[in-house]
């Protein structure tokens, strides 16, 4: 059957945000075409490729290699990646590991479903830094509930563990039980006076929505073997069941506009490198925080010479993530990480406070990923043999802990994605190039948190305490097409409709004006669902 060449709504990108929007649109009776640059794969194949990874890749957290690339839609690979070009003061702090495959990067996410705090959306007016969102937490809250319901978020019923406390509905299901390490850490931290909470996450603590309960594989990143962890495929499949059409390996590269600057069509290269054209009444770009601005810039036309939706020159600016630090240590008593999901507990005392006018908020999370493989690789690298080798592997597997600390970077126009002038992909499209500096706001936040981290290590009677001194990326790409009321300093309005093109919308992290310090996916989905409602309303008129 020939691929369709027209639809009411054309969605570019099949990750969780694009899939959610597509599903909402088909439910409203609209015809929907999804164009995905990457290939469609199957869970079993991805899982097998993960299980066949060499030990060093497993030990060092290779989340990319299980997912094969299309030759025409490259994405950053583990190892010597040359796709995402990074420059500036902190290039490694933006070394992202996103995927271009059907279903998107939620194939290998941790599933954490934090909400922004209400004050996170009023950062400028409250603390004098960053930006305010053009919508309030009250506007967004119903969509947080909807996002949690669609994804099946498990979370604590105990209101004292809610962060934020402002919720209009309970979690869909109770949290998954802590394993031994999270249990021990939360006990120690709570006893010392920290607020340590059970992180809400899109993993089933009971069968839900046709998917099974978590089986504790401890491989959420890079692949849940059974689908207990939500990913974008759930809503891709729901959209397809509702009548949407998906074309994979379809790389959109050109956007046509008419005299009123409405988008009339997009062009894509198919899997045979043949150019195809698709028309629509409305278009949604949901292609990840990096690929969305890359496309908008590359698709510049004679009416929009700086790029589509870029009259403000803000496309590609304000690139954000959660700059991270890690603390590794070896505890006195065995903790045995690796039971249950990979991330479960977090200290949230430092998500907010007056200090935010001066330095970054943070969240301190214990990683519950199994240390078994890393322990073996580390002990072997020490040159040990025999009984000493066996004992050291066991000690390190049982007692090694890793803490991930995430910080809130401010939206800065100079943290910017451009089209590379040096390298092009197999279709001749320039690689994305990002200039990045985490900024003094984050660096000061990093300095401030170190005594707290050392205190936590002391509570666990830990040795070999090492806190990284360079910031790492966390794959929570935000910015590049941020929302705002002023068309001169933002790309989309409060409905996530571009200021420049009244039938072009953007879904996902690219639109978020501030990052908070917690994982971004739930907020990305909530904003996308809000956008979908506005889109549906606009399509009625």
């Amino acid at each position, binding site marked *: 059957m020939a691929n369709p060449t027209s639809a009411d709504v054309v969605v570019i990108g099949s990750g969780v945000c694009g899939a959610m929007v597509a599903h909402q649109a088909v439910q409203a009776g609209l015809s929907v075409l999804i164009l995905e640059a990457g290939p469609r794969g199957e869970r079993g194949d991805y899982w097998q490729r993960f299980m066949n990874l060499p030990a060093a890749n497993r030990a060092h957290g290779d989340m990319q290699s299980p997912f094969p690339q299309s030759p025409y839609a490259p994405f950053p690979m583990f*190892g010597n990646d040359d796709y995402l070009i990074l420059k500036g003061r902190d290039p490694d702090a933006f070394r992202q590991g996103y995927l271009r495959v059907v279903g998107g990067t939620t194939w290998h996410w941790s599933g954490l479903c934090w909400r922004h705090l209400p004050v996170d959306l009023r950062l400028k007016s409250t603390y004098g830094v960053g930006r305010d969102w053009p919508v309030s937490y009250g506007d967004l809250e119903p969509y947080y509930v909807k996002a949690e319901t669609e994804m099946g978020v498990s979370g604590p019923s105990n209101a004292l563990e809610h962060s934020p406390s402002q919720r209009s509905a309970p979690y869909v299901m109770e949290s998954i039980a802590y394993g*031994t390490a999270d249990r021990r850490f939360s006990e120690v931290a709570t006893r010392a006076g920290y607020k340590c909470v059970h992180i809400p996450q899109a993993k089933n603590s009971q069968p839900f929505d046709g998917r099974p309960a978590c089986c504790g*594989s401890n491989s959420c990143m890079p692949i849940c073997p059974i689908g207990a962890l939500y990913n974008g495929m759930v809503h891709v499949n729901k959209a397809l069941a509702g009548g949407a059409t998906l074309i994979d390996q379809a790389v959109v590269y050109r956007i046509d506009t008419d005299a009123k600057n409405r988008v009339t069509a997009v062009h894509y290269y198919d899997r045979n490198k043949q150019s195809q054209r698709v028309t629509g009444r409305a278009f949604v770009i949901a292609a990840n925080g990096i690929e969305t601005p890359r496309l908008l810039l590359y698709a510049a036309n004679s009416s929009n010479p700086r790029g589509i939706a870029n009259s403000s020159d803000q496309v590609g600016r304000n690139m954000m993530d959660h700059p991270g630090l890690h603390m590794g240590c070896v505890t006195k008593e065995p903790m045995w990480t*690796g039971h249950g999901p990979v991330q479960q507990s977090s200290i949230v005392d430092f998500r907010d406070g007056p200090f935010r006018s001066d330095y970054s908020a943070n969240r301190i999370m214990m990683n519950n990923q199994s240390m078994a493989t890393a322990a073996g690789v580390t002990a072997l690298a020490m040159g040990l043999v025999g009984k000493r080798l066996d004992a050291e592997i066991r000690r390190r597997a*049982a007692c090694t802990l890793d803490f991930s600390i995430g910080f809130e970077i401010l939206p800065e126009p100079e943290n910017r994605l451009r089209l590379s002038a040096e390298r092009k992909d197999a279709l001749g499209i320039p690689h994305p190039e990002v200039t990045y500096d985490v900024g003094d706001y984050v660096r000061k936040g990093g300095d401030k948190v170190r005594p707290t981290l050392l205190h936590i290590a002391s509570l666990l009677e830990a040795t070999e305490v090492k806190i990284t001194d360079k910031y790492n990326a966390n794959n929570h790409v935000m910015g590049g097409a941020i929302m705002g009321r002023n068309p001169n300093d933002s790309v989309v309005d409060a409905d996530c409709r571009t200021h420049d093109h009244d039938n072009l919308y953007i879904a996902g992290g690219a639109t978020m004006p501030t990052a908070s310090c917690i994982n971004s996916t739930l907020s990305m989905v909530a904003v996308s669902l809000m956008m979908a409602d506005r889109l549906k309303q606009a399509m009625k008129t």
Partner: protein
Amino acid sequence: MPPNTHSVILIQPDEAKAQTQRRKLLALLLASPVLSASWAAPMAQAAGAADAATAGEKFMTLSVFATGRSKLDPELGASLLAALRASDASFAAAVDDLAADASSGKYSDVEGLEAGVRGTPKHAALLALISAWYTGTVSVNGQTRFVALGNALMYPLIADGSHIPGNCAGAVDSWGNLPLPALSAMPPL
């Protein structure tokens, strides 16, 4: 964050299956006196098979000594030996030397052997052999090659307190009240 310095050779499921079949065939060939006898006419082939069998036996004998495990999977051993030989042209000779050292009676265990060969070219080969058995991975020409996961020797060491990520551990929340195994309570290997 981990250093991004590792390149990967991934074995696809079909290829892994084919490799398993090839390994089984080789093992059968080397283990079967009937097959070996029937192939005895071509002298070069017979010599090659005999050499391979001898090299395999030496490798397995040395591996038992080097790992301290009384029982090792010969099929995995054949795969590891092939990968180790591909990674280092001098590995086969080093195995001969190390096997001679191990059977000389001079060393009572691998700790003694390791100390005895430290500073010699044999030392790197010994550690490579041990690393291969423990991780199921061999470095070949600067690239890491997956050979095995479930039989890698590092995992039974922590079987009472953890498991191989990617495999299901049990019903949801079954980990909710697990005890914390003591470090001293090493599982039987």
